[in-house]
């Protein structure tokens, strides 16, 4: 695969995604983490673009960055005065937690890498760069008239439930 601008940009997005995700996991300041997450989400949206999933990329930006991330920031604001997580990792327990968590995460990662590397069906599938027609229309068709009608309706119910539930739980109790 020749090294074109496109691949350069792809690697740029990939690096951006991974690096910022790493920050999300490591920085102490939770607001910083939230902003790193935003970068990650943007990065993923970029990758969607590379996958020719234009509608998906748009949804990613709108829902995630515009919705979830804002929600998270609100959450941060409402729950703590100071955004710093404890600076020093003091107790042995915490160190142990880090170590064990790292080991488990690493083990999972290694397993996944093994799978990715050893699955012939997934090998050598190169993005040939063919342009596909925009997906939006197709998606609309699928969702409103195709096989995804039912999931769509159910998800709408789910969102309603989530709304009601979120309101119910976060609402301050009025006790007589």
């Amino acid at each position, binding site marked *: 695969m020749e090294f074109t601008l496109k691949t350069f940009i792809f690697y740029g997005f990939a690096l951006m995604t991974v690096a910022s995700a790493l920050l999300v996991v490591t920085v102490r300041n939770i607001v910083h983490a939230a902003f790193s997450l935003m970068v990650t989400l943007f990065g993923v949206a970029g990758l969607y673009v590379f996958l020719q999933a234009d509608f998906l990329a748009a949804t990613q930006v709108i829902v995630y960055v515009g919705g*979830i991330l804002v929600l998270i920031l609100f959450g941060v604001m409402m729950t703590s005065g100071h955004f710093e997580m404890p600076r020093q990792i003091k107790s042995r327990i915490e160190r142990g937690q880090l170590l064990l968590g790292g080991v488990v995460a690493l083990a999972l990662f290694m397993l996944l890498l093994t799978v990715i590397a050893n699955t012939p069906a997934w090998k050598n599938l190169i993005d040939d760069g063919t342009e596909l027609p925009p997906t939006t229309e197709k998606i609309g068709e699928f969702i409103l008239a195709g096989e995804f009608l039912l999931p769509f309706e159910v998800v709408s119910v789910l969102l309603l439930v989530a709304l009601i539930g979120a309101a119910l739980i976060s609402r301050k109790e009025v006790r007589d």
Partner: protein
Amino acid sequence: MTLQHYLVISAILFTLGIFAVLTRRNAISILMGIELILNSCNLNFAAFSRFVTPSDDINGQIIAIFGIVLAAAEAAVFLAIILAIYREFGSIRPDEVDTLKG
């Protein structure tokens, strides 16, 4: 830009998400970790949709869209519960919410 590129990125995101969930000392950070995990899944679906299934089959993408929506709903409820926890416990450190045990 092979499938494996995307899969590796997704795997990294998944792993980091898991790591965050296991080690972060703030409930909201855990939520962020969960979002990372869900993103990795969505990325997987999108990638498979592009590479594995026929090019006119965009089911993977649609699943990813549903994934985003579900993530949003989950985040909303999660944050609501975090607020309730904050109200009751005055803290959102996950290790401080441990009255139920044994």
